[in-house]
């Protein structure tokens, strides 16, 4: 396993008028190893840009991103990163298992390992009965499960999730959060999850990195005092933690409104 180290990440976007807009302002943090790290910030604050920089979809203008595995940095080879998107982004013309195979093929996983991996991860997300189905015949929640399985099936060193529950209805999202938390805990999966939802961050994150917007700058990094199993909706400790987190974020927004 591994963790991600972001050092002094700086990114500019070109504006319409030709000038540059600062999107990431010297962002530095380490993710939890074997756990979930949440990037929490308001919409449009550059969280997704940061995630894209980690995945290599976007280049940084300064600073660097490293994937560090058990003590030594693995910058030399390209690390194995799994991605779960906001929209599931499935290949709708491929059956569920072929969508997973697409990722296995891309990441050059030896074909001999495919059957075992497909079985394991399709079962893990609870889609064993639907592996031969086409995505458009599945519900939104099930499609997102396929997206999750595709991210996991390549057995990534780091799993990147970009607001994966924000397009789902409240009840489906709740259920899927719970299952994702269990799965990541069971696999001891290093995960970086981007969200704008305070409750989601409190529930999912072992470590929570709070960002302010325009440009994105780290305000605070919190460790979740509760183990994943202790985070119950009606648990007084969890409620207190959630409240504190919300308080911190609200204060931040207020300060920004005044500035």
């Amino acid at each position, binding site marked *: 396993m591994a963790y991600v180290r972001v050092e002094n990440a700086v990114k500019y976007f070109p504006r319409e008028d030709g000038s540059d807009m600062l999107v990431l302002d010297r962002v530095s943090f380490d993710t939890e190893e074997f756990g979930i790290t949440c990037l929490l910030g308001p919409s449009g604050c550059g969280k997704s840009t940061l995630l894209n920089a980690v995945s290599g*979809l976007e280049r940084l203008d300064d600073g660097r991103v490293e994937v560090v595995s058990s003590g030594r940095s693995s910058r030399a080879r390209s690390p194995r990163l799994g991605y779960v998107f906001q929209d599931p982004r499935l290949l709708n013309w491929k059956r569920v298992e072929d969508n997973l195979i697409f*990722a296995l093929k891309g990441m050059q996983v030896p074909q001999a390992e495919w059957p075992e991996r497909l079985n394991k991860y399709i079962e893990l997300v609870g889609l064993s009965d639907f592996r031969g189905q086409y995505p*458009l015949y599945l519900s939104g929640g099930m499609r997102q499960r396929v997206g999750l399985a595709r991210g996991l099936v*390549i057995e990534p060193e780091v799993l990147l999730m970009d607001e994966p529950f924000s397009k789902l209805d409240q009840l489906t999202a709740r259920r899927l959060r719970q299952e994702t938390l269990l799965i990541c805990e069971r696999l001891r999966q290093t995960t970086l999850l981007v969200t704008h939802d305070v409750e989601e961050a409190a529930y999912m994150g072992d470590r929570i990195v709070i960002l302010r917007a325009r440009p994105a700058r780290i305000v605070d990094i919190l460790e979740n005092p509760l183990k994943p199993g202790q985070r119950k909706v009606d648990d007084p400790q969890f409620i207190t933690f959630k409240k504190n987190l919300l308080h911190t974020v609200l204060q931040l927004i207020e300060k920004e409104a005044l500035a």
Partner: protein
Amino acid sequence: MAPEDRVIAVVSERGSLSEGDIALPTDAKASAGWEFAWAAGLRIASIAAMLLLWWAMTLFFPPTLIPHPIDTLIEVVAIMSTGDFFSEMGATLRRVGVGFAIAMLVSIPLGIVMGTIKPLEHFFEPPVILGLTMPGLIWAVLAIMFFGLNETSAYAAVSVTICPMLAISLWQGTKSIDKDLIDMSTAFHASPWSKIVDVILPQLISHILAAIRYGLGLAWKVVVVVEMFGFSNGVGYQVVRGFNTFSMKAVLAWAITFLLVMIIIEFGLIGWLENRVTRWRPKIQAWRR
């Protein structure tokens, strides 16, 4: 409901919808069969109406101008039973097929390139648009003057006529490709080949199918014209022969056999292909009546 409340209007209740709207699960199979039979029935009725109209016209015109449908049908059977049919139709089909294949080989890469690379889009836009406006008849004349009366001119006329149309369709299709899916395939390190085959081409399939439909329609017209100019076989030649002997019956009979073959290709081959490649898409037609 309190006693003083009253119902203003019943907005919806069981049985208020027409039958096709909500098919209960148990009825689904039977209802699909019924719908199929109904659609087929309408098509047959339409053909019967056309035949009836034809027959009605024979009452007002002499058989040299409008032959009787039955006589024409006998001629069709005669043509098909002599074996002439297969060699003549085969020649025409081969010309369309080869011309079509050449056009596909050129226009699919051209359309994809135009949809992806801006400078090349600007460069190729004028010839494609000009090519689209040029009547197929003129291409046919040019091809025969250039290559002479041989197979090459037929292939050239067909492929040049339909190429711009195919390219435009592929070009527009490529522009509408979902960029998010390309990003996804990049995130999972898909190879360039896999990106084309697994991500890009499937999104173009419906555009390609539509282009094939229109393209075939154009190709038939051009090939018949080329054959009329002086080829010694093919459906176009047979039609000209009928014209020279002023046999309305022969002209119509060849036209009908031609239509039959087109229908088989259109509904049989392309319909089958379409069903096969779009199996992944649920057939929702709720907005249609």
